């Protein structure tokens, strides 16, 4: 796929993830009158001026570009909520579950197309950046726990973009560990003596999001 070095290991490019995120619903306030749209994913509308309605993000962006609506930023994009999330993220090693799966993509799309509809846009933007940095640092800390016999990693509430960034790296790293820990190379007595504490040893499957 586009952009990344090894096609076997990376599934999506950032643009493709953005595309998936555009299916998320947002509320808009239209300023045009239009009958309902009947799409495969559902019916949206009817559109009446000043009446709030829910549409997919791509439709909202398209209408916004033509000046036919204003987008109501989602609840979690408020200053108070984000400050709260940032504090929660800083306080614990667990990833907070208060943000939506596609928060990176949604926030970027809204910053690009609907700046005028977001109150305190600069603050909101830098808060989201901070949250992303804090979360990413946590992911890195989790990945340090890798060792020879790691077969799976369990990181809860990881968002789509965060998974996508670390996916190629994790894939390669796990492959390398698997190769170097094969029983032919390491005879049994030493396996036993190498009893480092393992956090993620018996996790049955990689669980990325609950």
């Amino acid at each position, binding site marked *: 796929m586009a952009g990344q070095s090894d096609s076997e*290991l990376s599934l999506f490019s950032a643009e493709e993830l953005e595309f998936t995120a555009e299916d998320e619903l947002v509320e808009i306030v239209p300023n045009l009158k239009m009958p309902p749209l009947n799409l495969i994913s559902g019916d949206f509308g009817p559109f009446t001026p000043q009446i709030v309605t829910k549409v997919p993000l791509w439709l909202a962006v398209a209408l916004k570009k033509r000046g036919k609506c204003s987008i109501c930023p989602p609840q979690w994009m408020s200053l108070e909520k984000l400050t709260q999330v940032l504090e929660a993220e800083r306080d614990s090693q667990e990833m907070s579950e208060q943000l939506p799966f596609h928060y990176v993509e949604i926030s970027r799309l809204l910053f690009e197309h609907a700046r005028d509809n977001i109150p305190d846009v600069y603050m909101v933007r830098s808060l989201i950046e901070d949250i992303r940095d804090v979360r990413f640092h946590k992911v890195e800390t989790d990945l340090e726990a890798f060792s020879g016999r790691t077969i799976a990693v369990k990181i809860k509430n990881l968002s789509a973009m965060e998974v996508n960034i*670390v996916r190629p790296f994790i894939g390669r790293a796990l492959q390398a560990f698997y190769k170097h820990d094969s029983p032919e*190379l390491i005879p049994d007595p030493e396996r036993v003596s190498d009893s480092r504490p393992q956090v993620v040893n018996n996790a049955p499957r990689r669980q990325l999001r609950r």
Partner: protein
Amino acid sequence: MAKYYDIDDIITEEETVSVIFQKAASGVGIDPSAEMDFVEAGSKVELPFWLAHELHLRQAVSVNVPLCFNQKTRLEIQADSASVDLRSRCPFFYEFGCKMAPLVADRTIGFLLLSAFKSRYKEVLTKAHTASFEAGSKFWTILTKEEINLYETAQSAMASFKKWRIGGARFQIASILRRKRKPTE
């Protein structure tokens, strides 16, 4: 034979190892210091790995532990594995190690590889996603090929994410459309 055309695999097998001939061999010019095309039993010769491997299978030679897995390197890896310059010792340290381990009597090579990789992995992990390109380029002169691959995967994933976040043209024009029309005569 999945790796038959893998260029890295080929280069790995070019690595020289020192072997001791168990049998005398005549008509071979592999020992450049010999006056005649004849190798005595018990002589010590440097051969590329692929040849040593084949001769070892036929029990014509016995293989010594290569320099990059010697005691000195081991001690250095134990002391501070992250700053050992493995690349200058052997650019394909891990792959070569995996190939060597079955040939030599020393059973600890596998363990050395794993412990070296485990501790160096952490260093790669912390630097790969965060360090800027300039800071990183100094760091990866000491990495082996496998570590560089890992490092570059992380860097390119991060770079493509950053590129996306900064934004730019949403739709790319297919190269065929961008071409200017040829002036008609």
